């Protein structure tokens, strides 16, 4: 079976499970909105591109960690990961399948939380919606790459929740710093999109996709 089909099969399985239970997405979206409410109560409507991006990142980070934990918990419940590992497919593809499922959930989260943020905080993305989508989209790929790897690590070691956040947040800070700086330049100072900033995010994605894909097999080995 071709690699693409395996990845789609596995990601489709995760999304089908999510569609049946609808546990993760509901939880994550409501949590994201709650975070925005709390921040809006303290920060008010006045906002800059810098603030907008940082506030949205808080929702992506916390929501993302929950997505990663939930999609991996499915594999742990009845030892299903062992079943996947026994399948005659490249184990890197199991990682990629999980990554795609996580990205789909993150995308859905962002699709709800971002417009809500625009309403609550009066963010003005009209200056550069394309740049915003590109920077955030590319960043979320890197975040999901790290998160998926360590969700496998932490679930294989039966670690408690919260630990995943502690591991993944520091690793993902370059994404947060870069995207806030780049978008602040675009939206607050009306500069053109800083390609070197976008480059940092792209390099992050490439490095962590490659590294995670190659060590995934080692960390899930039961």
């Amino acid at each position, binding site marked *: *079976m071709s690699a693409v089909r395996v990845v789609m*099969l596995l990601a489709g399985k995760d999304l089908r499970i999510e569609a*049946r*239970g609808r546990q993760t997405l509901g939880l994550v979206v409501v949590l994201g909105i709650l975070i925005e409410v709390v921040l809006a109560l303290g920060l008010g409507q006045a906002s800059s591109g810098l603030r907008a991006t940082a506030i949205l990142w808080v929702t992506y980070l916390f929501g993302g960690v929950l997505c990663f934990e939930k999609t991996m918990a499915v594999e742990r*419940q*009845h030892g299903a990961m062992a*079943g996947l590992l*026994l*399948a005659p497919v490249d184990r890197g593809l199991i990682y990629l399948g999980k990554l795609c499922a996580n990205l789909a959930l993150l995308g859905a989260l962002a699709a709800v939380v971002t417009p809500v943020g625009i309403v609550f905080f009066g963010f003005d993305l009209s200056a550069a919606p394309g740049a915003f989508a590109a920077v955030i989209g590319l960043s979320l790929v890197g975040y999901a790459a790290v998160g998926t790897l360590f969700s496998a690590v932490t679930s294989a070691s039966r670690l408690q929740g919260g630990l995943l956040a502690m591991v993944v947040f520091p690793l993902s800070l370059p994404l947060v710093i870069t995207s806030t700086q780049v978008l602040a330049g675009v939206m607050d100072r009306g500069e053109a999109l800083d390609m070197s900033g976008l480059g940092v995010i792209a390099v992050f994605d490439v490095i962590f996709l490659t590294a995670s894909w190659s060590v995934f097999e080692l960390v899930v080995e039961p």
Partner: protein
Amino acid sequence: MTTSASIRLGRPGARAGSASTAVSLRGVSKSIDGRAVLSEVSVELPRGSFVSVMGANGAGKSTLLRVMSTLTGATEGEVRIFGESRGAAVRAKIGMVAHETMLYDELTALENVTLFARLHGVPGAASRARLMLEQLGVGAVAHAAVRSMSRGVAQRVALARALVHGPELLLADEVFAGLDVGSRELVEGVLTEAWGKGCTIVTCGHDVEQSLRLSERVLVLERGRLVMDEWAHRLTAGSLRERLGGRA
């Protein structure tokens, strides 16, 4: 069974490793966090064997099966499954039922089995999956979510999942635990049928009579050591029970 046993005279496992060997372990030790779980286990299982692994709780039976499945590596020694140590080609030939069912709660029995059939590249995955479920007497609940199933039913779905790609080596860890009398006979029938088609079967469990009735060879583990490797027809329930009960 008597014919196959009479061909192989002498002590079990005397045959050298060859193309007809399904499982070959040489001096396999496995330690988990510094504690020896398996110690220097050496055993050769020819293709088409039906072997029962017995031993007290914690003797290392499940670990032995996991080593044979290539899911976990040995700390020392050599593991060869159909002549290879690991890799996708070996995994394609293995079917496994473990303590845990390896099933997804939210998916139906059919979806679970079909998923694994697809991963194994079985042609006509869905119809093959349905057939397996029917063979195991769980065709009626093919569209029920695994979440709603009792342990015994889920166990049979797990067996369907392990057999759906027609494995050449079936590793069944306490597959009879939690089954009622009817399903137990059904599962025995399915295992015997797979064996009849040339599948090598390694089971582990605690039922002495059943092991002697089903399998042609019995291995006994005691605290990670292989303390007995004998043809089943040379054993009686009493002697085997004594061997098992004689644990310090």
